[in-house]
């Protein structure tokens, strides 16, 4: 039985060398080659590949951000020229990666490793952990990439008004309304710059730049009024945190 492979890289020659190497494996079929993350997402949805060979630095959304948008990402072999942080993260999670330029032998080794792990579910978990790790680094911590229907939305963090927990999702409020991201509040609390964003409530994180004033609300509680007019609850534990960071 043959396996489907998708190659995603923004440099044409980088794609062609992978195609060349793959031709040595009769059981690997290249379903599609893509030159950016958007094309990659579409192709992955369409072909449900067994393996993707993924470049990291790509236009608009990078390899990590693309993976984050896929619910059950396929097995990945990363190929990168130089990315200190990513390489550290790969090493930390024992994920195989190819350093460009790589030769046929090195490529075969990576394929062999993938075949060995193919039938275990460890791979997907490793990828998830890797994505959580690299989310803390630039540019991933500078923007949020969200799938909005068939469109991909890139939201620079300074454009966020506030975040609200919603079951397994987080609502990201901006001037265009809200977008759903399948991450947890604690994930965002970790990723976002704590001098810019404060968790004012178990279910809310506020962008400090947006706050116009803080009013008392019922007994012991407060509410933050944002520039947009939105009212965001501030809990008993959240209030002192807000006060401290705003220097009130």
């Amino acid at each position: 039985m043959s396996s489907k492979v998708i190659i995603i890289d923004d440099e044409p020659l980088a794609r062609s060398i992978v195609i060349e190497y793959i031709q040595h494996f009769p059981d690997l079929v290249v379903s599609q080659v893509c030159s950016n993350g958007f094309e990659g997402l579409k192709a992955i949805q369409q072909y449900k590949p067994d393996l993707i060979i993924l470049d990291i630095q790509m236009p608009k959304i990078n390899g990590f951000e693309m993976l984050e948008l896929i619910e059950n990402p396929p097995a990945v072999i990363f190929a990168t020229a130089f990315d200190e942080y990513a390489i550290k993260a790969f090493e930390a999670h024992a994920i195989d990666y190819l350093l460009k330029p790589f030769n046929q032998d090195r490529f075969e080794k990576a394929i062999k490793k993938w075949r060995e792990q193919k039938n275990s579910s460890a791979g997907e978990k490793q990828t998830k952990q890797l994505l959580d790790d690299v989310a803390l680094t630039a540019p991933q911590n500078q923007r949020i990439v969200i799938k909005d229907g068939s469109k991909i939305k890139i939201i620079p963090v300074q454009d966020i008004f506030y975040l609200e927990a919603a079951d397994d999702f987080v609502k990201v409020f901006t001037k265009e309304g809200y977008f759903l991201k399948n991450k947890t509040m604690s994930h965002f609390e970790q990723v976002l710059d704590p001098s810019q964003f404060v968790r004012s409530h178990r279910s809310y994180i506020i962008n400090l730049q947006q706050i116009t004033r803080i009013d008392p609300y019922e007994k012991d509680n407060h509410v933050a009024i944002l520039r947009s007019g939105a009212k965001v609850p501030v809990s008993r534990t959240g209030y002192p945190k807000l006060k401290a960071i705003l220097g009130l």
Partner: protein
Amino acid sequence: MATSPLSVTRFRIIFSICWLIIIADQIFLLRWFGLSWKIAIIDSAVNDALLIAACLLIIMMLHYYLPQKEKYFHLVSWCILITVLVILLTKVILKNIFIDDAEYQIFFSRSIWIRSSMDFLMLGCFVLISVIWYNWQEQSEQEERKQDAEKLSKEAELFKLRQQLQPHFLFNSLNSINALIGSRPEEARKMVQQLSDFLRGTIKKEEHQWVTLKEELQYLQLYLDIEKVRFGHRLSTVIEADEALDELKLPALLLQPIMENAIKFGLYDTIDEITISLKASKEENNLVITVTNPFDPETSTPKQGTGFGLQSVQRRLYLLFARTDLVNTEAKENIFTTTIKIPQA
């Protein structure tokens, strides 16, 4: 080590003139007390010769040991000690020369206190002058060392700034060559050549090297050709530079980081094909370079526009011209413009 004042001709002349005046003064003073010419001259000569020797001795000593400020009292004690020695020696010599002249012997004994204080004052004057001299020397040497150190670190920084090379660029270029070797070996060779010429350019060592616009643009072309192989049809570049500007000067390797910044910014901020343009012109006495690249105002953070590349250009121009207004950026609609000015000598 500070130079001794005695090795400076002007100081030697002044020193000699001073002593001639002092000797003459002493002779006339002794004459006024009623001594004969002969005695006055010999007395002055012996006394002042010893005093000059003492002075030279102290100046040379100070050359090797300059007391700290709080230990200046050492100098005073030296002066007193040496004055006593000089007076004793003078007394012994003169009393031996004029052994038969009782009148002079009495005169000498009566004048011993005034002689001592005069000698002490003169010695003190010269010591003071040489202490000031040595301190001034040390200070200017320190100043010079400081300037040297600053110059060295500035040069090192400039060298480092010029050498900044994105490893990303290098490895991706090698990766492209690797791909070309299999399919189009002729092109692979050409790219190896271009990459080599480009790298050779970045490691050229001459400090503060200035090149003509023509040379810099030729060098830039190597870089752009490599990038075009990497990114294929997605990247186009337009370079407009009138031949009349060919001979204008600019610091070497200044334009490449600006283009690199524009390409990175342009290529990674959109998935479309992009055109980067560079225009050279002359305004007043400045060479003006304008680079434009497209960007997406919706998703770009303003910070991205002034990446490391532009910061290093700004720093270099600051180190060379001590001006911070030579790099300007502007974002208008979806075009990002970088303008740099290079003052012409």
